[in-house]
């Protein structure tokens, strides 16, 4: 009788240990794996974002040159009228005033249009780079079985993150490697 109860106890003990082990393993599998990324570091150092910014800056320079040219034409005509008003006929003055008014209107329309185009293009360029970053993070997370990736922002949505779940450097390295 004693022997039977001793064996039963051993079986119950081993069974209990196995159940505990299985439960711990199941809990480990169910616990989401979390990582975070320092978003500002990624945005500042990703090659794609830098190149998008360079492309936009080049276009901005071109637009600024055109705006300066239009502005210079207007200023030149205006100065000519001011300096020569005394020696011009009424008809010539009227003609010049109309031309100056037209130049002013062209300048205003062009700057308004360029403002809209510049904003549009800047948005598209940066959105494209963000899309690349997000797609890469999605691929990286799937490869490394990460369930949630949190991005830190300047407003401090993540107040603290342990180094072991900071994947910023790895993401940045992989991103730049896959860019070109």
């Amino acid at each position, binding site marked *: 009788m004693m022997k039977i109860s001793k064996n039963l106890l051993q079986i119950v003990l081993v069974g209990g240990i196995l159940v505990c082990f299985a439960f711990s393993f199941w809990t480990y599998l169910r616990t989401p794996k979390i990582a975070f990324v320092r978003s500002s570091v990624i945005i500042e150092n990703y090659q794609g974002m830098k190149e998008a910014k360079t492309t936009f800056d080049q276009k901005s320079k071109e637009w600024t040159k055109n705006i300066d040219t239009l502005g210079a034409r207007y200023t030149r005509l205006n100065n000519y009228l001011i300096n020569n008003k005394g020696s011009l006929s009424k008809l010539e003055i009227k003609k010049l005033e109309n031309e100056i008014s037209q130049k002013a209107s062209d300048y205003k329309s062009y700057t308004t249009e360029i403002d809209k185009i510049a904003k549009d293009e800047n948005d598209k360029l940066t*959105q494209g780079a963000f899309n690349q970053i997000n*797609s890469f993070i999605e691929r990286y997370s799937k490869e490394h079985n990460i369930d949630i990736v949190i991005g830190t922002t300047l407003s401090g949505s993540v107040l603290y993150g342990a180094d072991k779940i900071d994947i910023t450097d790895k993401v940045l390295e992989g991103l730049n490697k896959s860019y070109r």
Partner: protein
Amino acid sequence: MSMFRIYQISVLMAIFCYSCKQNTISSEQDYYKWIGDKSNHLTLSKTIAGVKITVKFLPPEYLAYNELKNRISTKIIRDSLTKVYKRSRTFLVSFSLDDKTNKEAPDIMYRDISSLEDYNQRFEDLTFNIGNYLQLKTANNIYVPVLHTFENTYGITPNRSIYLVFSSNGTSQDDLLLSSKIELVFNDLIFSTGISYFSFDKSEIDNTPHINFWKR
């Protein structure tokens, strides 16, 4: 000559013949399959935010074959036409949606489109303005496409393709044709996938198999 010597020579000849055969393909389907095989590095693709961009390099001999395939032609004509195509670089760029996003907006043309104006702009960009977004870079020069054709499938397929041809256009032809690496750069302001680079090595371009299935 001993039997062993004869055997050695036969084995060497068999190996030689086999390696020669490796560099020719005997049907159009197999050839297209070879070009589309990513391990041959003539077809590259990237998927960004659900949009898949595939760039395929089209070998000059294949382009000549395409032009002559329904006609019987002599070797002189084939070689002459191939030589013409060798003076430029031709690519097929395709846009499609990956499987996950296909259910929401099956046709790439409607992806993120909220008005008729947006659709018209996208159509115009793909048809007329694509040269502003796709360029070819070598170490020393940047090339814009001299020809581009947007293949509008009118909704028959959810994907769209563009043929692009780059030629030397007054700059050094040697640079375009002899550069060890050429990069197709897509500055995507149409589908907002950012700036993507597709790199092709000259060694892989030169390694395309010869066509052995001309109409005779």
